[in-house]
């Protein structure tokens, strides 16, 4: 079976800076993959290339068998690629419900109106924000906003969900809740790519890990192999994980 997402020789240049250098990797349907690497390694750029925010300078991106290298972000959304942001991006003056309904209407298949709101309500229930539905999105706490991002992502009815640091800035209890949520989403059969600094999260959720360093893919494999890989240890993890 051909992979859901396939990157071939993807390079992204910002002026003289090479943020991604000939990255090859693919994600199969139903996989949960972790993407790790030090700050500035090109993780968010990779997500931006996949979603069409910054088109690849060279190389191709294929999604569900289709060449999508040159797509616009809104096209990516309609094809079923949803993402959450490292810095959460709600529509602050709309209600929480409207935020999720917008995702359903424009990326999903919900018709505009009451049915979109009903579907949005289900997603809010799933992430535990049902009682906040009528509140302004801008008034939510950070942890709730992250959950709102997840609800929006789900409302988009994605085939592939890209989670960019959904746990950054959360306390341990909140991280536990977020983990449970992501696991529940994966259980629905959604393919997920998780960008994460917390190794605990990655090791917990992912069946495979890929490592970026200076824009290059330096390792890819199962979690146990990755934490022992000397290049990964040197570039990112340090000795703490190597000892295990």
């Amino acid at each position: 079976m051909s992979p859901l997402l396939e990157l071939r020789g993807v390079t992204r240049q910002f002026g003289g800076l090479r943020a991604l250098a000939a990255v090859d990797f693919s994600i199969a349907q139903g996989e949960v993959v972790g993407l790790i690497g030090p700050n500035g390694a090109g993780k968010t750029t990779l997500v931006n290339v996949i979603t069409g925010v910054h088109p690849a300078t060279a190389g191709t991106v294929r999604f569900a068998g289709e060449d999508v290298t040159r797509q616009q972000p809104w096209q990516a959304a309609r094809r079923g690629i949803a993402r959450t942001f490292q810095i959460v991006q709600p529509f602050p003056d709309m209600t929480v419900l409207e935020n999720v309904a917008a995702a359903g209407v424009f990326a999903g298949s919900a018709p505009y109106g009451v049915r979109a709101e009903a579907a949005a309500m289900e997603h809010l229930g799933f992430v535990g924000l049902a009682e906040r539905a009528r509140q302004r999105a801008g008034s939510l706490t950070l942890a709730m906003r992250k959950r709102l991002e997840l609800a929006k992502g789900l409302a988009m009815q994605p085939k592939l969900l890209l989670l960019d640091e959904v746990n950054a800035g959360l306390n341990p209890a909140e991280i536990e809740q977020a983990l449970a949520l992501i696991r529940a989403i994966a259980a629905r059969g959604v393919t997920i790519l998780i960008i994460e600094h917390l190794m605990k999260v990655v090791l917990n959720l992912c069946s495979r890990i890929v490592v970026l360093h200076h824009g290059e893919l330096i390792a890819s494999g199962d979690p146990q192999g990755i934490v022992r890989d000397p290049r990964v240890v040197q570039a990112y993890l340090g000795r703490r994980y190597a000892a295990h």
Partner: protein
Amino acid sequence: MKRTFIVALVVLAVLLAVPLTMQAYGLRIGTTMLMYGVLAMSWNFIGGMAGYPSFASAAFFGLGAYAGAVAQKYGVPHYAAWALAGLVAALFAAALGFALLRLRGHYFAIASLVVAEALREIVNSATALTGGGMGLNLPLPQASSVEAQARFFYYAMLGVAALTFAASFLVRHSRLGFGLRCIQQNESAADMLGVNTTLYKVIAFVLSGAFVGVAGAIYASWVHYIEPPDVFDVLYSVKPIVMVLLGGAGTLFGPLLGAGVFLGLEELVWRNYLSVHTGVLGLLIVLLVVFLPKGMLALRKA
């Protein structure tokens, strides 16, 4: 939604009945108010709903005025000329939108501001067609009296205002309006959610141009004579913005309310402070915007 409908019907009934009791001066004020209403509601599509500060209203207004006037010069009957003016303004807005709406924020505002100036220069130099700086005379409508004429233009302007309102209502309660609100709140997030932002913005811009073009053409017929500095006046770009901010940006009734209040202020201040009226008006506007940043409709909720 039902209440909106009732309020709109009441307002329409009042506006329909008002001319029966009015003399020429009152009708003139009424027609101006409706024209301002069209300008404000139109600006609301792009400026209020999509959050793009357009200064292109004067360009659409002048273009519509000249399109209508030139068409009538070549014998097109006035109703057809007005409709044609709307079409010309809409097509122009579409072409302009694809070029300008790639810019965001201040860049878009400045770019839209020079459009009227450019059009004014073109009209100035195309003497054969537009009369250039000498201006253009329009045929007088056939009406039995001065009052009947005034009433005719009042109802013509009311017709456009009603159409503009209906369009606002439809947009506001549709997928398009929802998408525009998303763009206004956070454009890149809207993009990520699947909103075709360029297309939506261009549609909003076309809506903000079409009705203004018709209003410009009706205005030209109403005053019988137009010249470039009159119809491409930058105030036609600025006033609608002030009106919308006064009434409440992005709302349905805010622009109409703002247009009425603005015209009232304008008349009152002009009458009482003839030599310093622009200064006093400016001060009033600053005070209103500082103390009522979300417009007068926000008072009702507070």
